[in-house]
Every structure is written in C-alpha cells, then in structure tokens.
C-alpha cells in the first residue's frame, strides 16, 4: 500500500463495528491496526499533502485545516460511541504500518495507564458567556438635561457593566466548583476568542470535565439547573454545554 499512515487514536480492542460510512482525513476509511493487545486507528493519507514540506504549507491553509480537523474529530467521535479512545493530536503521521507498531510498543505502558484512568469516561465542555449592555444606543435613557446629568448617566452604565462582570465571574467560580466536585477531573482552558468562535459575548469560563458515562445524565441536569438559575439572576449571561467528547483534555500524562 502506498501513502503515509495517519493515526487518530489508540484504544483497547472493542466488539462493535465502526460506522460503515465513516470516512477519515483525506476520505480514506479508518482501519484498525492491532499490536500487543492495543489498537491504533489508522488511515492512509497521500504524501502530496502529508509529507513534511506539504504538510507545513497545508497547515497554513485555514480551509484545509478546518476540513482536516473536522474529519479527525468525526473519527474520534465515532470511536467514542463504541469505546474509550485516547485521541492523538492532529497530524500524527508515520511512514508505514511498522512505524505505527514501533510507536505502540514504545508507548505501551503509558497507553495502558492512561486507558485505565479514562475508561468509561467522557469529557463535557462548559462555557459561560456574558453580553454587556451596550453603552450607547437603545437603552431607554432620557436625554441628558445637562453635562452633569450626562456624566451621571454614563457613570451608571459603566458601573452596571462592572457589576455584571463581577456577578458573572462569581457565578462562573461557583459553577466550576460545583461541577468539579461532581466530575472525576476538570481542566480550565483559556477563554475563546470571539473572532475565532464566532460566538457573541465575552467568554468568562471555558472548562472541561471528565465524567463517567453512567453519571453523565446527572451531570447534564446539573448544568441545566445552573443555566436556569443564572438566567433568573444575571441578565445577559449564557451557559453552554458541549459533548460528550472523547477525553481530549485529560489524555495527557500530567495527572
């Protein structure tokens, strides 16, 4: 077989088949390479895109990067339905199957240890956003009668927004504490840049929680309840849940 080997994830052998329609990066269906009782999920990718030089160029191309990232994620997603995958970082590429086997052997102990820690668990993402009231515009504020009046109104608007940030941060701290107490593990990620996410409002909390599958329903309910509470008490706040993800944020060795 020609081409390079793109590795998505490492997992333990699982009984169920993958979705038959599943296509990986570059359109090739992923296959399972078993070695020493571990499985590497692999697909063939062309040298013209994935050899060192072209890959470097390709990664600068946002459309290509987006497409490849989505394909990578859809394979990980399909694996998460049937097993607990250890997701590898995007664009982990080997020359041939034997290169993949050597890697599996070299990292065998790490993989088994991490699999033990993560088996039966998934990752949930929770983000908190807040949208400040516009400082200008629609607000039904009476036209200032004087300069002093104008300054007073302006000061009040600024103070309202400051209160809003503070309230939101307090809410996010409480939420994170409550969810961390319920989850097996948690990670705080950097707030997302709205230019990249395309989401309105300031991202105040961006966290990931490791939760057992069997506890996930309850975890989702916990988030839902806090969502309702937050909307009652703080205007402009939004709690967003994503998942279930493979345990991307917990696959590293540091814990």
């Amino acid at each position, binding site marked *: 077989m020609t081409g390079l080997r793109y590795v998505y994830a490492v997992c333990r052998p699982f009984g169920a088949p993958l979705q038959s329609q599943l296509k990986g990066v570059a359109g090739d269906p992923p296959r399972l390479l078993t070695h020493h009782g571990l499985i590497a999920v692999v697909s063939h990718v062309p040298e013209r895109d994935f050899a060192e030089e072209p890959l470097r160029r390709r990664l*600068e191309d946002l459309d290509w990067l987006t497409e490849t*990232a989505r394909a990578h994620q859809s394979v990980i997603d399909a694996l998460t339905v049937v097993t607990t995958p250890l997701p590898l970082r995007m664009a982990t590429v080997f020359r041939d199957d034997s290169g993949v086997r050597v890697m599996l052997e070299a990292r065998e102990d790490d993989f088994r240890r991490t699999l033990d820690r993560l088996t039966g668990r998934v990752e949930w*993402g929770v983000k908190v956003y807040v949208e400040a009231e516009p400082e200008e515009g629609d607000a039904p504020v009476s036209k200032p009668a004087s300069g002093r009046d104008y300054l007073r109104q302006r000061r009040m608007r600024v103070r309202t927004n400051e209160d809003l940030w503070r309230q939101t941060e307090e809410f996010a701290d409480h939420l994170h504490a409550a969810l961390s107490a319920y989850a097996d593990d948690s990670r705080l990620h950097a707030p997302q840049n709205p230019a990249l996410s395309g989401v309105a409002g300031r991202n105040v909390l961006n966290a990931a929680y490791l939760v057992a599958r069997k506890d996930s329903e309850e975890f989702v309910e916990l988030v839902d309840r806090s969502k309702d509470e937050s909307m009652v008490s703080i205007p402009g706040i939004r709690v967003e849940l994503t998942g279930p993800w493979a345990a991307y944020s917990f696959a590293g060795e540091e814990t």
Partner: protein
Amino acid sequence: MTMAGRLPEPYGQGSGANLADILERVLDKGIVIAGDIRINLLDIELLTIKLRLIVASVDKAKEMGIDWWEDDPALSSGARRKELARENAELRERLAQLENGHAQVRAREEEAP
C-alpha cells in the same frame, strides 16, 4: 438549545460544538507523539499557528462583513482609543454648549437691567 447529542447516548455528531471547540481539542489537546513526519506544529506548541489562525479568520470574517469586535473596547485597543476620542469630542461639545448658554444668559442680564 442543542438538545441532540447532549446525553451520553447516542453521541450525536457535532454536539453543538463550534469550530473553535473542535480546533481547541484537535490541535491543542490529545496525546502528543512524534511521528515520522515532524512538523513545527508539535515542536512549538501551536503558538504561531494559533496566531495565524486567528489572523486568518479575522480577515475571513471581515470579508464576510463581520467586524463587530473592532468596535468593542474590551477586545480592540483601536476601539478603546476611538472610544476615548469620541468621549473627548462629546465632552468638548457639551462644554461649548454650556459656555454658549452661559454667555446668552449673561447677555440677557446685561440687556435687561
């Protein structure tokens, strides 16, 4: 809002995740293994690519006419400067109005002794 895929089964694809959610995990999390194809992506911990990404998407967004963050003082120093300049101009105008009003009052006082 995005009810599908929220529950542990059946793991609906997409799960209401935006592109940033996916890139954040696929590019930045997960296990790092040095493959046969070595790329900077792994060596430099994605710093430059992330910057390029954001810059690229900003350009893209602008092409599509989305540029609201440029006017948000919390996100853009340019907007912060503009905000200050605007406020300054507004205050100066109000001061002028006040002085003007004051002058008129004084003129009237002088006219009607």
